[in-house]
């Protein structure tokens, strides 16, 4: 295994941020950590990147413990933090130059790599502009670029697409796939289920500091069988109706978020009429209904009864 996380724990005073998790990454794969905000993904990544010390457990990269050889392991890693970790008054080129220096790169190689990374990011023309003049998407790209300069074996990406436009997101996701094709191992965290589904070979779903499920996308989806996600947008929905829906045949989970009611149900297409009837009988005005094939969101709903984005 390229990276092994063994019984990793982090306790802050009385709060267990990470509660004894285990997972491993094979060389050359994209591994996704999926979970809602506060699930413990960032804490896990901070421990893998050597930013915070685990309360217990260990992280082994290519046979070396991060606790014993942090410097060597940091040298083969690149971290893309969730926030834009750049100096806003400096240009993209100056930022990249500085971060390259921090990885001990010599001037000649650094210059070549800066030009190369700027080209990959599609920002060559804006290279000498100050970061604080960039759009959110461009900042995100440079934020990633700073972690790529030294050509790390392992790239850790902590929610790298938060708050950006769809075009920039697509650019970033395609770039991640490209990097992986070139042999880079990637640990990717997100609470966007679609991103994880699109990118990752294997996924671990985290909730409240624990891994509640892990495997390939197919393995995870198999956990909910042939269940569909039926989403009903309705006015005047009343809380007691949740119980009525739950006793319907095949219904596994019901989740209410404002006027949107999500029902995880086996053979969703067949049960749709029964579901709509419940709404009509109780005087609810149904505005729209959609049926979705099983996905990781459905897996999370199935396992926790909550939505991934809560």
């Amino acid at each position, binding site marked *: 295994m390229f990276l092994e996380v063994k019984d990793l724990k982090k306790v802050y005073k009385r709060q267990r941020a990470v509660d004894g998790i285990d997972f491993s990454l094979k060389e050359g794969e994209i591994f996704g950590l999926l979970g809602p905000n506060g699930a413990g993904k960032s804490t896990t990544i901070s421990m893998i990147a050597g930013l915070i010390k685990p309360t217990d457990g260990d992280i082994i990269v290519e046979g070396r413990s991060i606790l014993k050889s942090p410097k060597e392991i940091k040298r083969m890693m690149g971290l893309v933090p969730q926030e834009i970790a750049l*100096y806003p008054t400096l240009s993209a080129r100056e930022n990249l130059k500085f971060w390259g220096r*921090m990885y*001990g790169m010599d001037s000649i190689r650094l210059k070549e790599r800066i030009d190369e990374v700027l080209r990959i990011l599609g920002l060559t023309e804006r290279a000498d502009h100050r970061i604080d003049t960039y759009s959110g998407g461009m900042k995100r790209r440079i934020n990633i670029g700073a972690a790529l300069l030294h050509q790390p074996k392992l790239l850790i990406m902590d929610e790298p697409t938060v708050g950006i436009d769809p075009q920039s997101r697509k650019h970033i996701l395609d770039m991640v796939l490209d990097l992986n094709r070139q042999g880079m191992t990637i640990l990717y965290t997100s609470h966007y289920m679609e991103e994880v589904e699109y990118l990752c070979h294997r996924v671990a779903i985290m909730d409240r500091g624990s891994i509640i499920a892990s495997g390939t996308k197919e393995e995870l989806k198999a956990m909910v069988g042939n269940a569909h996600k039926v989403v009903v947008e309705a006015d005047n929905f009343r809380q007691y109706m949740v119980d009525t829906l739950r006793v319907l045949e095949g219904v596994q989970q019901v989740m209410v978020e404002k006027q949107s009611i999500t029902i995880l149900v086996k053979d969703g297409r067949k049960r749709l009429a029964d579901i709509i009837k419940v709404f009509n009988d109780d005087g609810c005005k149904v505005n729209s209904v959609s049926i979705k094939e099983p996905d990781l969101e459905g897996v999370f709903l199935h396992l926790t009864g909550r939505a991934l984005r809560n």
Partner: protein
Amino acid sequence: MKKAFYIAGLTLLQTKKDRLMFMLMIGLAIFFTFIMSMAFGGRDDTPVKIPVAVVDNDRSDISREIISRLERSGLYEMVLSQEEIIYDYVRDREVEVGFIIPKGFGQSVEKGQYKNITMVRLEMSSGAGAITKEISRVISSFAAARTGADIIKDEGRLLSVGDTGVIERAAQQTFDTIIGELREPKVTGDYRYVTMDGQTQQDYKPLDHSSIGFMLMFTMFTVLFSAGDILEERKTYTWYRLMSTPTAKGSIIGGKLLGIYLIGCIQILILILAGRFLFNVNYGPSLAGVIALMAVFLLSVLGLGFMLAALVKTTGQLQALAPIIIVGTSMIGGCFWPLEVASPSMQSAARFSLQGWAITGLTQLMTNNAGVGDVRLNILVLLGFSAAFFAVTLLKLKYEYR
């Protein structure tokens, strides 16, 4: 180690890119020194003339000489007045002080029986003393001249010189010569004051004090706010990214310290040069002394900045706290006025101020021809402060990252 220099270089580059604050701190120090130079009458040493009203009821040679002497001193602007209005003049602060020469004053001086001159002044005014001294000096001159003339007359009589006109002329000539000699001082002063330990002192002017006071205060602003960059780095998460690189924590902190220290050095250098060439401040003969003192002063301010950055949680808290600490300790430490004029308790309090130790050291170097060895106590105390501040910072950081 190399990485520490890159981090220091980054701090300098950031200051260069975002130089408004840095320029402001230098500009404000020069501006306030300039304002003080205006208050002290400029660097040409032309004193502001004090308006003085005088009522001459005597109109004798001696009364005219008193008025003329005060006018020629260059210190006073004489305004001839009348007895009925001189009190109003003083009360309305049109003049600083007034005096009335009574009728018969000249005759009484001739006879050696002095009459009182009435001084009119506000209760808190201090100008009357100098005028009284000047009047006494004129009277003494007259007395000396009169004595000289009398001696000539007596000698003439003793020698039985037949022509009394000759004796009178000789006596008058002697009188005029003595008065004339006393009128204009032949020697101008290049003052050297003697201190208790016997060393000579250079002339130390209020403007010199303002220049170094504002230099120290505004350098503290720059250094303390720059130290707050660490808090800013935490906010922008570059600190965490730095920690994720294979860079030793010591190099990161050392690089930050070095960068801010160099910014402080640049500011002090610019302000010293500005003081020298814009305000003609004389920093004394010991360049090594000034460098050593400023080096440890900056170190202690840097320590204070890091300690504050470690103790507070946000940049906002630091920005609120720093001016209070800087202005407060600048007042206590004597940046605004010489410590000699402060009360003993204030002088004791100055011992707890970094600026106090720096300013007394600089004053010593500027006025006493002192060297590094003479300000060793100041240097040691500032080093002690630095050690204490850094110790508290490290303890706090150790506790934080436990």
